[in-house]
């Protein structure tokens, strides 16, 4: 595909603005020497270029998208309509409280729903994504220890099955990471945990169901061990879709949580964002929450700083229009609809796994929740196809592959999360295709290793990309 810089011609333009209606006055400061080399395009060309690009993008609306830990569920259309209401889009974040009662109602109502769903007492919507929520949650924990003068708590315990953002977040909060090896059953090893805690434990970061798709059945004991050591427990909400409406982190002993509105609560991923990562916490941590709390009564809502507010995670009060989408979804589903999410997400995963486990080795083949993990380790050891090969072959069948090579504790992993918004016949078709790929892999592994064959491009050379980075268009006049 042509780049946007190869479209158009000098002098072409869209006619957007009226003539200036006051005297021209430029800033009295140094101006740029040359204009930025932006494309000069007619509107036809702008539209054609981006339509061409959209033709080489695969979204949830294009087909099955079982990316483990990403919860790629269907994004309801009504969410988009609500997020485009001028009554929301046209509001300046620094308007006076009495003129933004609708926005504050959205935040207040969404907070009430999310508190109930997680078993927490307060929520901030300031974090813009999951990792940003993790950062916020850990800063709440840091604020708690700091205020108590408990400065010896320098260590954050993170299971080795955790998403990479967990240890990275702990580092951003100044903590030393204690990597906790998982047991052979894929769960937290209680003895290892007991051995890891001490007076220097600031806390534990945990996902439940965990990244192996398993529920930490000893969760009450786990949170007790941390609390008795004087630490706090953080819930990574990446996998909330597996238990929503059935069990709540707040009842398991977690002190704070982040949620991904772009996973569990159906807001779109936009090719990598914007998401929203609100953080909920128990009452004793609420006084540190960043940004503003919405206080007061309906009709007289106002924004206030928490008593010992830890500051701001970003400007203003979060990815508001994403919260609008999520609230639309929450209101629609309500008390009966929310538990249906996890029940059907877990059912779809169990159904798929049950139909595939005779053919594909499972890392853990019972009691999985909303996702399951295939391991191609034996195949690779025999010189057969890898997780990557299976993934790339799925592309030729019009399906997005599962998450590859994660969790790290499972070798040659393919992590499959079908979500609740897929039909039985879609799952049956995927099962059929995956069995067909398995057969072909036995018969002609080289063919599988050469996939994809029907995608717009073959496997890209990532090594060269990283070694000789070309990260902007060269405009013809530069050489590599």
């Amino acid at each position: 595909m042509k780049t946007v810089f190869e479209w158009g011609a000098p002098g072409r333009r869209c006619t957007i603005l009226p003539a200036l209606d006051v005297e021209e006055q430029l800033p009295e400061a140094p101006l740029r020497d040359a204009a930025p080399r932006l494309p000069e395009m007619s509107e036809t060309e702008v539209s054609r270029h981006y339509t061409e690009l959209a033709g080489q993008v695969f979204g949830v609306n294009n087909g099955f998208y079982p990316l483990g830990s990403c919860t790629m569920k269907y994004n309801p259309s009504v969410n988009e309509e609500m997020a485009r209401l001028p009554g929301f889009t046209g509001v300046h974040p620094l308007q006076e409280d009495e003129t933004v009662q609708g926005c504050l109602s959205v935040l207040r109502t969404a907070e009430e729903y999310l508190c109930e769903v997680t078993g927490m007492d307060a929520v901030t919507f300031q974090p813009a994504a999951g990792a940003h929520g993790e950062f916020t949650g850990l800063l709440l924990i840091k604020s708690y220890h700091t205020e108590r003068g408990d400065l010896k708590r320098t260590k954050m315990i993170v299971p080795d099955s955790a998403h990479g953002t967990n240890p990275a977040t702990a580092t951003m909060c100044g903590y030393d990471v204690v990597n906790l090896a998982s047991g052979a059953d894929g769960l937290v090893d209680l003895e290892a945990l007991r051995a890891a805690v001490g007076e220097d434990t600031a806390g534990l970061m945990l996902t439940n169901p965990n990244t192996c798709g398993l529920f930490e059945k000893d969760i009450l004991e786990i949170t007790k061990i941390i609390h008795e050591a004087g630490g706090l427990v953080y819930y990574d909400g990446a996998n909330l879709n597996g238990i929503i409406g059935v069990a709540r982190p707040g009842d398991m002993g977690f002190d704070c949580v982040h949620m991904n509105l772009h996973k569990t609560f159906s807001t779109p991923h936009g090719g990598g964002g914007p998401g929203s990562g609100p953080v909920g916490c128990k009452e004793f941590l609420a006084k540190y929450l960043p940004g503003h709390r919405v206080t007061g009564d309906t009709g007289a809502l106002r924004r206030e700083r928490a008593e010992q507010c830890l500051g701001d995670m970003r400007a203003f009060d979060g990815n508001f229009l994403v919260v609008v989408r999520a609230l639309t979804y929450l209101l629609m589903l309500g008390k009966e609809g929310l538990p249906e999410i996890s029940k059907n997400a877990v059912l779809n995963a169990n159904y798929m796994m049950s139909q595939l486990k005779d053919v594909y080795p499972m890392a853990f083949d019972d009691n999985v929740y909303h996702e399951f993990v295939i391991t191609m380790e034996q195949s690779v050891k025999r010189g057969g196809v890898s997780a990557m090969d299976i993934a790339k072959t799925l592309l030729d069948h019009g399906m997005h592959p599962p998450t590859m090579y994660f969790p790290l504790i499972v070798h040659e992993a393919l992590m499959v999360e079908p979500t609740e918004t897929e039909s039985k016949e879609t799952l049956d078709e995927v099962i059929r295709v995956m069995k067909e790929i398995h057969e072909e892999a036995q018969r002609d592994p080289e063919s599988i290793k050469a996939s994809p064959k029907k995608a717009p491009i073959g496997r890209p050379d990532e090594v060269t990309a990283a070694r000789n980075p070309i990260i902007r268009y060269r405009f013809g006049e530069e050489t590599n």
Partner: protein
Amino acid sequence: MGTFVVNTEQEQKQMLAAAGKSSFDALFATVPDSVKIDHLNLPEGMSELETAARMEGMAAQNTVYRQIFRGAGAYHHYIPAVVKRVTGKEEFLTAYTPYQAEISQGVLQSIFEYQTMICELTGLDCANASVYDGATAAAEAVKMCVEKKRTKILVAQTAQPETVSVIRTYAFGKDDPVQMIAEKDGVLDPEALKAALAEDSACLFVQQPNYYGNLEDMDAIAAMVKEAGAKLVMGCNPVSLGLLKTPGAYGADIACGEGQPLGLPLGFGGPYLGFMACTEKMMRKLPGRIIGETKDHDGNKAYVLTLQAREQHIRREKAGSNICSNEALCALTAAVYLSAMGPEGLKEVAKQCSSKAHYLQKVLAEAGLQARDAKPFFHEFVTVSETPSSKILEALREKGILGGLPLNEKEILWCATELNTRQAMDEVAEIVKEVRA
């Protein structure tokens, strides 16, 4: 109740049986009974129609002003229709991060093009695929500059307060010291900067135009920072870069800013777009996703996520940042906006902003609200008067006009963009006159 579950109860039963599970309870067998809940204490769900009515009711409780003269970090600009149509395409909207390059060339290329445009605007070599907003971009940028012997982050007092707060919050994580550099007459005090710069200075963060709309003497500031061996981080308004000397030309090491003016609605604060660009030397310190060009095995051009050895999923606790999801769709929006506007269109927006702000300053002065700072400015400025700010703003509000941001009861921070007409500005001046009479 509403639902997006596809399968009927009958189908669910078949699937349970096929999975060897006797009931839904059997699926959740490893959840201890003591943490199970039997119901959520929430209202019943609603149909789409009822839900939409409820949400529209909330939207109707907000005041949407017919003219907005408030900026202070969020700017009201015209969004071309083609921008909304293109970015509403469901493929862009519903895709995940482009991990599978073979079927994601469209989104990868759009970000590669966005990175190029950010390099062009800032005059720097490298840009990332976006971070959450302008304030987090600043916080990430100053973090890139912290080295073993240079740990102190200097921040101009003239920066947007929200940005300063976020820099402080990020610094609290690692206990990095932050030192504010005082303001004098609406701009950074050069004497204070000189006194603060030392061998332990990691960088200076300075915003251009600054929070008050004033243009800092960047040449002088850059020279002082360079001489001290510290890094220069410039926060910029991207629209102003259609006109103003670039951070690259000033010798900045990093430029960052809020991309919201490039086609994103005010939206009560988000989602917005944090853009970041830097010199080639600092490329491997950039946080977040970066898209690179390469080839596939047949020699076809291909785009991929690259330089991933910097990122959390590879480096885990050794990563410089934990960022994973970013603001990709907002970056796409900015790219479509810049494509639709072109170099001339962007320059025209900047010119109109500047011209109208200067006109507004003039008519407000005639109405009795004097400019506070006698400094060059872009599209924001502060007025000062004895008439209480709240009284002026209340009178404007009654006429459907959002006035500037009150800094206190004497000072107001005004902003003008291409959306403010001469007629509306004359009207504002008239209302101010009446209030003062």
